[in-house]
């Protein structure tokens, strides 16, 4: 992850930004997946841009989770290939954040050890694990008592721990499947800004599945709108408001127009089948 900080908040059509956009991070080719009762993907092609945060949005059950799960290797594809800068998944460090943080964290480990666990799997010695967690905590400015067990943390704090656990390996790419949908509204707003900060700090290519269009637009550089299954790209909608985005962003014309545009496409898709 050595992407120059200069692309942080670089304007809409910066020349440098443009050149990066032409070198995709992940290439998805001819990806197919079916379940006994439905074809979810049929020769699906897509490029995930590097160092961007993209949101995946679409009708219920269209295959959003299936997509990121296939990319992350949690669900096998029937056919097709997914390459990360030309390499297969097995050679890539990635992070995955589950919706259900209660079931994704290890309740028998304190938060600190939960975050360090991926390093343990990688065989990093204890002292170094400690150092790296402390560095990440300082880097993100997280203020949680990490000696506590997950069940003593609030839902938002637990999800933040999950996100840190995903980030500790310095992943090239971060996947999040509806990470905030189990949180109450106040916590969701807070967590959106936490995620935005994490993204601005690390510039990690991020794929976020969201069922909340406002959240999808607010957080992303692009919204990937999927059709009903077999899922196709309806449109890859760019949104380039500068970061950090704030409450004010939500009332800006650019945001409203982008959201309205996505909503129109989404509703057309929902009413289609």
């Amino acid at each position, binding site marked *: 992850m050595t992407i120059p900080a200069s692309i942080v908040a670089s304007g809409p059509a910066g020349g440098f930004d443009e050149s990066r956009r032409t070198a995709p991070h992940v290439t998805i080719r001819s990806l197919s997946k079916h379940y006994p009762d439905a074809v979810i993907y049929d020769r699906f092609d897509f490029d995930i841009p590097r160092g961007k945060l993209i949101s995946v949005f679409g009708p219920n059950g269209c295959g959003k989770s299936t997509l990121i799960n296939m990319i*992350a*290797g*949690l669900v096998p594809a029937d056919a097709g290939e997914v390459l990360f800068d030309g390499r297969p998944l097995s050679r890539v460090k*990635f992070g*995955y954040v*589950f919706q*259900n943080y209660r*079931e*994704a*964290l*290890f*309740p*028998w480990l304190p938060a600190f050890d939960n975050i360090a*666990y*991926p390093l343990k*799997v*990688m065989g990093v010695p204890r002292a170094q694990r400690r150092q790296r967690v402390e560095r990440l905590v300082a880097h993100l400015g997280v203020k949680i008592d990490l000696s506590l*067990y997950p*069940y003593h943390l609030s839902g938002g704090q637990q999800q933040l721990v999950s996100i840190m*656990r995903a980030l500790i*390996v310095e992943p090239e790419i971060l996947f999040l499947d509806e990470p905030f949908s189990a949180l109450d509204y106040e916590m969701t707003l807070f967590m959106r800004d936490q995620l935005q900060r994490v993204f601005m700090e690390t510039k990690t290519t991020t794929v976020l599945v969201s069922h909340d269009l406002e959240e999808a637009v607010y957080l992303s550089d692009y919204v990937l709108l999927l059709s009903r299954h077999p899922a196709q790209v309806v449109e890859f909608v760019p949104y380039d408001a500068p970061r950090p985005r704030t409450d004010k962003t939500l009332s800006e014309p650019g945001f409203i127009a982008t959201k309205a545009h996505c909503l129109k496409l989404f509703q057309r898709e929902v009413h289609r089948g």
Partner: protein
Amino acid sequence: MKTSNALLPLVGVAILLAVWSLATALKLVDPVLLPSPLATFRTLWESMLSGKLGVDFLKTVMRTISSTAIAAVIAIPLGILLGSSEKLYRSVEFLIDFFRSTPASAMFPLFLVLFGVGDRTKISVAAFGAALVILFNVAYGVMNARKTRLLAAKVMGASRIRVLFDVMLLESLPQTFVGLRNGVSLALVIIVVAEMFIGSTDGLGQRVFEAQQLFDMPGMYAAIFAAGALGYSLNLLFLLIERRFVHWAGR
């Protein structure tokens, strides 16, 4: 408010003692059949400290603990193994359920033939019964490990062995303790029955039986209370261990 709630469990005890005292004071029941609480607890106290009851108590404790320990040593690894592959478990599920449903006491004659009259038979029948209970619970604990947690370990790159030891094993701990608690209760039941009828010269079961034969009613009640206290304490002991090691259970 808090202290009064903590005292609530004593209410039932107080009522029982009151009814019992009343019944003996008014001679509602033949005093030979039902001695007064005072006489009973005096006998309990004295025979635990100086009499034979204390020795019998320890004997039963030893047998129960050793049979549970043997059961745990066999059943926990086996349960993990079976639970880690649902197919494997399903293929032996019927056997486990069948023998779990067989009264362990029906196995005494068989074990007598195998091990003769003595501690080995008692302990092995109790261990047999307890092992099946523990096995069943451990296997289910492993099989019901949260899918998300297993996936989480997998996406972090954990190998199958690592997932087994770092996740499945810990996930199954709460259920394992359920199995251990049920197992030790069952072991105690089997041991006491065995002590009564399988040519025993000591142990709480033998003590209860002998007191009854000799018409020593205070002695019999004392032995019954000793057995009750033992069962309750064993359960409590396992609960305390569980709370210490499985602090996350139910949270």
